[in-house]
Each structure stands twice: as structure tokens, then as C-alpha cells.
């Protein structure tokens, strides 16, 4: 791993040492040679921030390479900021309860306008334009054809006539396979204020995400360029980005990639030139108030941009970022980029927090968050994880959101307990103790079966269903699978998946194929149930009993108690042919020790599969004499009965005794005891009684619940 990344990083260091301190770079700051990705869509963009209006004036050069086998006659672009253009956009129509945002101010709506768009086939120029600022390059490009009048807004997913988040524009002439085209776009954008769903501005703070006209992905013979839906992330092709960001001089800027140079301008602004390779998106932020903290984890430089009121948590964020880098590189493979920027959103701009971009993540914290509340750490680890599952593996988040969010949730569930061992690895503060797995399981249980996991993001029943099926449910599915396959096998599969599909667009099938291959087992039976259906997994011990074996009565029985009892059971089973097809009954008969004529007990355990999800389970049966029996059941039939004849009574039976199946929606019904268990019931009742007594006596203390709202 080390040797693989060493060369580009050394190269990078040398290149940057040779670069001028300021001014436009004419030298190609080569990060990766050869390129890591196909580099289908590369951009040179100049953008100037108009601070007061939160407007962006931009000029973009897109170098698009047709690496498909199709001849392209039109281009399709995303204009994501138009999701915030009005209340009639697809985004807004789908937002019944925008959790990521606050209400947009009257003048706070965002938009993006394409002022002009032109195309050139003068691909000979591309190498010389590669690092040129678009304003200068425009004069160098011959054969620019203005196609602005041809722009047509389209809604490929659902009818939404007022939506302007995708446009199509015909090419003057078709682009054959292997052909390249240069697209020059002048645009004006206004960021929503305060930030709305990951992007926007608040006072002096700007976070620009999805801020420029961005070409769709041509795949499977057509454009894959979805409308901006309220419940979706993104999908784009890899490329090289050169971006010149002009902001007020006192602003600290953070962005995807590496800062190559800073030029101060006469008008009190400064232009920050950023370069990024093999990324599929570019985001940036600016604020005069950022407090900068830097560190290094393994071979990755980390830069944390904190808000001044969170400055005391800088080290906490930095340590979480370091930890994330270390865990992901150690467990899931190399992070090939030399740096990571961590952005802490401003107060009142939390909607821009908790988001991922290539080499840049936004996190979320608050003043006074106690150390035992690991939400900030979890968010940082989660967002960095996206640099694997969304960035390196650029799956289509419109269509298969779980491939990013779900796998990332799974890795959260693995990393948090390891990084923060002990009880309450997610929350251990103010008397509340919560593990990360429990946290996700609670979300999952809220709506476990509204939809299959694998759906387009706008096709879910509700926002809650999208959330459950994109985050916790796949996280728990993969944790269950890991427990089934074993940690080593699962880790090997995940590493293989990352290695094989990095810088490509894997689909669910590709992920499944890797797991099948590495596990050496066809797991499609699992994937089909877990991802393509809404089946519920719930195994339950429904009955246990133990009764004395009595001497047989009636005709035609043998004298042997044990044998006759077994024979009776078999006869019952054989006589009921309808049940025989649906049952799997096991008789485990122990012949009593002939030297000790003790009482024999017939004990039984009935287990039922209450959901449609079939999964192999273990069953543990414990007897009074301490004997423990473990049984396996493939879980295919609707129920299973276990029968034992032993000189001891049964105490309890548990299905999944090791808790390997967090996907099971009801863990309480996984066990059954012969005797009533009053101890725990009394304990929880006693504690409840106390708090009820207390609240009856001092109801005014209820106001303490308002405290969290007051201080956070």
C-alpha cells in the first residue's frame, strides 16, 4: 500500500516546490501519473464570489471525452442549484419536511443560470488549454459554436414542468465514440441563504456545493442525468479540475484538491487556484472566520477549518479525521489522495454540514458538546468514509443510494466500537448510553419494510423509508452478512471491492459478485431477500416445555419408556403429511444412565420464522444441569421443533444466541424460558416507578428537557 502511493506523493511534493508562490500556474501539477481514473469530464472553472448577494459569476471550460461506444448527439447537464429556485422545483415538491434545512428567507432562494454555452471540436487545443483560465482560453479556442438558444430543460424522471435542474442541448454535429468536445459555459449562480441541503451561504460564510453546470454521465447507451430530487445524492464522471476561486482577500478558502497558488487582486479580492485530479465533483468554502488546524495521518495531510466558536474542538475533529484515515486505509485500502480538508459549518448553516465531496468533507459539531457524545466523531468518520464509497467507488447515488450510504453506515458500525471501545461508543453522556449499532437499529426498526433497499432515491414510499433503506438497513444487512461470513472474509471482500472498482461506477450487482467470489459461496439468496425485497427477518422461540416422561399406556407400545416416546413422536409426524412438508423436527433422545434410574423429562422448543426473510440460525438450549446444546437450522421452513428426552429439565432456548443477526427486528422474542423471569421486569418496573414518583412530586423538573433546545 505504501509503495503504491509513495511515488505520486513524492512527485507532487517536488512539483509544488517548483511552483511559483503566486500567479497563474502554467506547469501541470501532476498528481497521478498515469491517471487513476478514465477522466471523462474535466473542468477549468473561474468563479468570483459577489459576497453581498451570495452570487457566483462563473466561466467554465468542460473537456468531455466520449468513452462510450455510442455516438453522442446531445449533452445533458445538471443545474443542481435550481432545486432551490422556487417552490415548484422537483426538489421542493418532494420536500415535505426538509430536515437538512431551515426555511429559506424571502430573498434567500438559490438558482443557477446558463448565460451562454458554446461548443468546439477543436480538440487539438485541449492539451494547451488544460491549465488555462477559461477567460484566457476562450480566445484561444477556434470553432466555438454558440448553442445557447438550443437549451431545453428536461425532466427525465418525473413530471415537473417548472423544474430546471437538468437541461439538454444538441451538439452541432454528433460526437463519435472516442471523440472529444470542449464546452464553454458562462453562468451566474446564487447560493441559497441560509444553506439548504448541503449548499449555500450564511453571512460571511460560503459553502459552494453542486454550484456549477455539471455534465451528466453517459452510460448504458444513454444519458444518466436525473432531476435534483429532495432525497438524493449525486452521480458524475471522473476528471481533472482546475478552479480559480476569487473571494474577498481576508477569506480563508478550502476546496477539493490542493491549493496551487493564491493571487491578490487590486479590488481587495484574492484568487485561489485549486487543482484536483481523478475526482468527480468539486466543492469549496470561504470564510474570514475559519480557524485552521493541520495534522497528518499516515500519508495524508489533514486541514481542519473550524468556526471560531468551535475552536476548542479542533483537536477533537482532527483526531477523528486522523482516526478515519487510519482505519479506512488499514481496513479498506489506499486513499490515494495527498490531503483531506475538513470543514466545520458556521452557526446557522448546519444544513451545509455532514456532507461529502472528494477530498473535502463537512462535519457537524456544536459548542459544549460533551466528550461522551460522539456524534461529531461519528459524522467525521462517516463523511470521510464517503471518500471511499462515493468518491473512489462512484456509484449512482440517484439509483442505488445504499451502495454509498449503506456501505458507509456498515463501516461506521465496524469502526466506532473499535475506535471507542466500551459501552456507549456513540453516546455516553448525561446518563444516556447508546452504541452505534443500537442507534442504527432503532432507526431501522422505525420502518423496516416499507420498501426494498435497492430503489431509485425518489421511488421510496417516504423520506423515512429512503433514510432507513439507504443508511441503517443496509448497514445492518452487511453487519449480518459479516457475522455470517466472518470478519476476515468480509474484510477481504470489501478490500477487493474497493481495489477492483475504484475510479469506476460499480452497481449493486458488481458488489454482490465480489462478495460471491471472495466468499466462495453464492450469496444471491441473501442479496435477493435483503436488497430486492422488503422481507422482514424475525425468528422467535415461541414455546418451551419440560415434562416428566410417564410410563406409556394403551395398546401396542414397547416397554422402554424412551424408545416408545420417540416412536410416538415419529408416528405423529408421519401421520401428518401436510405438516411434514413444512416442518423440520429434530428428536434428540438421551438414554438414561442405566446405573442411575432418575426421572426423565421430555423437553421441547418450538421456533418460528415470523418474517419472510430466510436465514440460517443457531439455537442454544440450556438445561438445568448446565448442559448446553447448540443446534443449527437453515431457517427455510416456517417453524422447527426440537425435542429432547433427558434426565434434566430445560431452562431456556435462544435463537441466535451470539447476537449475530442485528437485522432481526425483534431480539426480545429470540429467547424463551421455562420459568417466568421477574427479576429484570421488577428492576425496570422499580426504576420506572421511581421516576414516575419523582415527576409526580416535582413536575416542574420536566422543564429540564428544554435545556437541550436552549443550549444547542
Amino acid at each position: 500500500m505504501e509503495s503504491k502511493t509513495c511515488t505520486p506523493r513524492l512527485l507532487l511534493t517536488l512539483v509544488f516546490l517548483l511552483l511559483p508562490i503566486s500567479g497563474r500556474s502554467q506547469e501541470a501539477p501532476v498528481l497521478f501519473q498515469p491517471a487513476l481514473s478514465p477522466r471523462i469530464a474535466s473542468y477549468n472553472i473561474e468563479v468570483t464570489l459577489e459576497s453581498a448577494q451570495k452570487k457566483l459569476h462563473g466561466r467554465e471550460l468542460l473537456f468531455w471525452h466520449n468513452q462510450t461506444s455510442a455516438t453522442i448527439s446531445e449533452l445533458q447537464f445538471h443545474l443542481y442549484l435550481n432545486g432551490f429556485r422556487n417552490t415548484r422545483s422537483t426538489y421542493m415538491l418532494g420536500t415535505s419536511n426538509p430536515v437538512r434545512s431551515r426555511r429559506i428567507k424571502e430573498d434567500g432562494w438559490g438558482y443557477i443560470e446558463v448565460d451562454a454555452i458554446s461548443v468546439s471540436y477543436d480538440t487539438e487545443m485541449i492539451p494547451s488549454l488544460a491549465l488555462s483560465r477559461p477567460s484566457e482560453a476562450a480566445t484561444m479556442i477556434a470553432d466555438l459554436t454558440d448553442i445557447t438558444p438550443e437549451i431545453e430543460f428536461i425532466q427525465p424522471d418525473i413530471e415537473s414542468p417548472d423544474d430546471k435542474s437538468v437541461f439538454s442541448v444538441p451538439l452541432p454535429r454528433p460526437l463519435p465514440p472516442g471523440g472529444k468536445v470542449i464546452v464553454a459555459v458562462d453562468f451566474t449562480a446564487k447560493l441559497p441563504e441560509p444553506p439548504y441541503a448541503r449548499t449555500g451561504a450564511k453571512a460571511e460564510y460560503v459553502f459552494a456545493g453542486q454550484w456549477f453546470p455539471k455534465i451528466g454521465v453517459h452510460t448504458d447507451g444513454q444519458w444518466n442525468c436525473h432531476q435534483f430530487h429532495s432525497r438524493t445524492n449525486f452521480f458524475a464522471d471522473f476528471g481533472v479540475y482546475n478552479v480559480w476561486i476569487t473571494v474577498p482577500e481576508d477569506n480563508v478558502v478550502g476546496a477539493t484538491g490542493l491549493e496551487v497558488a493564491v493571487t491578490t487582486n487590486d479590488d481587495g479580492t484574492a484568487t485561489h487556484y485549486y487543482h484536483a485530479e481523478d475526482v468527480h465533483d468539486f466543492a469549496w468554502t470561504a470564510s474570514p472566520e475559519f480557524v485552521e488546524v493541520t495534522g497528518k495521518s499516515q500519508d495524508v495531510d489533514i486541514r481542519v477549518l473550524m468556526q471560531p466558536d468551535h475552536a476548542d474542538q479542533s483537536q477533537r475533529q482532527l483526531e477523528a479525521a486522523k482516526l478515519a484515515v487510519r482505519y479506512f486505509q488499514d481496513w479498506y485500502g489506499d486513499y490515494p489522495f495527498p490531503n483531506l480538508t475538513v470543514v466545520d459549518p458556521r452557526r446557522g448553516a448546519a444544513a451545509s454540514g455532514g456532507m461529502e465531496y472528494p477530498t473535502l468533507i463537512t462535519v457537524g459539531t456544536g459548542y459544549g458538546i460533551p466528550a461522551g457524545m460522539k456524534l461529531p466523531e461519528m459524522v467525521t468518520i462517516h463523511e470521510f468514509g464517503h471518500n471511499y464509497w462515493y468518491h473512489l467507488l462512484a456509484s449512482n447515488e440517484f439509483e442505488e443510494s445504499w451502495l454509498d450510504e449503506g456501505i458507509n453506515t456498515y463501516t461506521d458500525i465496524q469502526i466506532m466500537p473499535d475506535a471507542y471501545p466500551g459501552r456507549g461508543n456513540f453516546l455516553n453522556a448525561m446518563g444516556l448510553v447508546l452504541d452505534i449499532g443500537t442507534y442504527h437499529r432503532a432507526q431501522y426498526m422505525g420502518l423496516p419494510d416499507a420498501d426494498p433497499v435497492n430503489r431509485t432515491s425518489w421511488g421510496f414510499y417516504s423520506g423515512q423509508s429512503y433514510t432507513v433503506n439507504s443508511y441503517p438497513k443496509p448497514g445492518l444487512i452487511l453487519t449480518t452478512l459479516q457475522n455470517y461470513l466472518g470478519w476476515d472474509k468480509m474484510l477481504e471482500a470489501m478490500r477487493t471491492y474497493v481495489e477492483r472498482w475504484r475510479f469506476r461506477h460499480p452497481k449493486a450487482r458488481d458488489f454482490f459478485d465480489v462478495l460471491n467470489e471472495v466468499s466462495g459461496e453464492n450469496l444471491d439468496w441473501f442479496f435477493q431477500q435483503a436488497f430486492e425485497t422488503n422481507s422482514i427477518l424475525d425468528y422467535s422461540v415461541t414455546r418451551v416445555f419440560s415434562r416428566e416422561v410417564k410410563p406409556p399406556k394403551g395398546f401396542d407400545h414397547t416397554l422402554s419408556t424412551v424408545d416408545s416416546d420417540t416412536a410416538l413422536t415419529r408416528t405423529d409426524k408421519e401421520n401428518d403429511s401436510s405438516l411434514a412438508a413444512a416442518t423440520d423436527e429434530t428428536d434428540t433422545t438421551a438414554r438414561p444412565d442405566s446405573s442411575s434410574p432418575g426421572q426423565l423429562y421430555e423437553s421441547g422448543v418450538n421456533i418460528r420464522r415470523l418474517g419472510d426473510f430466510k436465514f440460517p440460525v443457531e439455537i442454544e438450549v440450556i438445561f438445568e444441569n448446565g448442559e448446553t446444546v447448540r443446534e443449527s437450522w437453515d431457517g427455510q421452513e416456517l417453524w422447527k421443533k426440537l425435542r429432547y428426552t433427558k434426565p434434566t429439565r430445560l431452562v431456556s432456548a435462544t435463537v441466535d444466541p451470539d447476537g449475530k443477526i442485528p437485522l432481526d427486528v425483534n431480539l426480545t422474542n429470540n429467547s424463551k424460558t421455562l420459568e417466568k423471569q421477574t427479576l429484570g421486569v421488577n428492576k425496570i418496573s422499580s426504576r420506572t416507578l421511581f421516576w414516575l414518583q419523582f415527576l409526580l412530586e416535582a413536575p416542574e423538573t420536566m422543564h429540564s428537557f428544554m435545556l437541550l433546545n436552549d443550549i444547542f
Partner: protein
Amino acid sequence: MILSSIKTGLAQVWKSKRMVLIFFLANLSFALVLMLPFRAAVSNFAGETLMGTKLAGHLPIDFIFELMKNNKSLFSIYGTLFMLVPASYWLLSLFLSGGAFATFARGDGYSSPAFWAGAATYFGRFNRLFLWSLPVFAVLLCLQFLETGFQRLIFGSDPYEYVKYWGGWVKYGLRVISFVLCAMVYDYARIHVVTTGETRMRVSLWHGIRTVFGNLGRTFALAFGLFLCGALVLAIYNPIADSLAAPNAFVVLTLFVLQQAYMLFRMLLRLTLYSSQLFLSNKLAGAPAPLEISTDPQGLEGAAA
């Protein structure tokens, strides 16, 4: 004066131990009414599972989510119970407080007829007094918004988070003070009703307000001191109770005893507050020894005259 009030108050409560028990049992029985459906649900859901034992240790949060998910009817029951039971308990407490104030006003310890007669006599008046007090409570509870106003005035509409954070704590503190002040006004007004036999509740309310704010240092120190005492013991109780988590009958029993001991202490504290405030009120008014309160409801109207 404060310490002597508490000392006298405690002595009076000590003489009325049975009254502490009455308050405690009232509290326990109402809480039981609220708790029993929960216990039945837990027992039904987990009573024959290993979770039934596991619950004796640290509470598995998974279980709470599963209980909620699988016992939706329980929450509709509680929707009603949480409306009725606390309201009924409040009324009962108000009823009993009449007996307590009357007993302390007499000063010769608990006597069953005097207690219940006092409870019955003042119940109606205390209810009317409460209604009269509502506007005063509303004003006092607005105290917390002083913080909001000052924050906006000093830091504007976009303060740093640490301003909001510490401001939140100040607001919380102001709310606590407001609640203590509300309780104080109501207590001193009730004391006035009991000690003077006043039937015009606006007069007693006004007396309560004057007593509290005319002697704010002493009245507040007394009430807040006892409030802090309760909070302090709760702070000690909590980690001990949390640590009592093991699948062992003795541990569960110890926990129960500890919990009830704390609640008994709270009742003692409440009655000590009543008694101490009554003593302080008398001192402030220059009144002599405890008053003779007749057990005759007719006579109570003019008992202090």
C-alpha cells in the same frame, strides 16, 4: 433566622411523622397506577424470555425500542393516564397540603382529625387561590425571557454559539428560579389563608407576593436552600442507583429500598419546607407561637382571629 426556621420546621415534621407517610403513600400509589400498565406490558413482552433477566443489569436500549414498537396500545393508554393521573395527584397534593399547613399552624404535631379537617377546609380555597395565582405565575415564568432580551440586545440576532450555550444555561437557571418563586408565592399565600382564615384569595395572594418579595433574601434562601438539598441528594442517589445493576434479587431489592428512601426524603423535605416557611412567615409578621386551629370546619374560618 433561616437556619432556625429549618430547625423548627424539621422539629415540627418530626412530630408529624405519620403525615410524611401519608404524603409518601399518596405519591407511591399514584405512581403505581401509572407504572402498572407498563409493568404488565414488560412482563407480557419479556417476562418469559432471557431479556426478563437481562433487564436486571444495564438497560438494553434495543429493548426499549422493541417494547415501543410492539406495544403501541400501551402508548394510547398512557396518552390518557398521563393526562389524568398527574392532574389527580396534583389535586390530592393540594388537598393534603391543607392538612399539612393546618397541622404545622397548630404546632402540636400530627392529629388525624385536625389534619383531615384542615385538608378538607382549605381545598376549595387553595384551588381558588391557584386560579388567582395563574397570572402571577405567568409573569414570573417570563423571567427566563430576560436572558433572550439581553442576548439579543448585546449580541444581536446572530450570536456565537457559546453565547447561546451559556445563555441557555442562564435561561435554565432563571426558569428554575421562576418555579421556586411561583411555589414560594403560592406557599406563603396558603400560609396566609391557614393562619388568618382569609377567604378572599386575592388578599392572600397579595400577602404571599409581599412576603416573598418584601423579604426576598430570606424567603428565597430558605426555599432555594431546601431545593438545592433535594437536588444534591438526587445527584448522590443517581450514580448509586445506576450502579445497582445486576441480575440479583438482593440488588434489585436494595435499589427499590434506596429509591423509596429517596422519595421519603423528598416528602420530608417538602413538609419541612412548608413548616419552615410557616415559621418564617410568623417570624416576619411578628406573630407569636403556633396558632390554635380548630378541627371544626366552621370554626376554622376565624381561627386566627
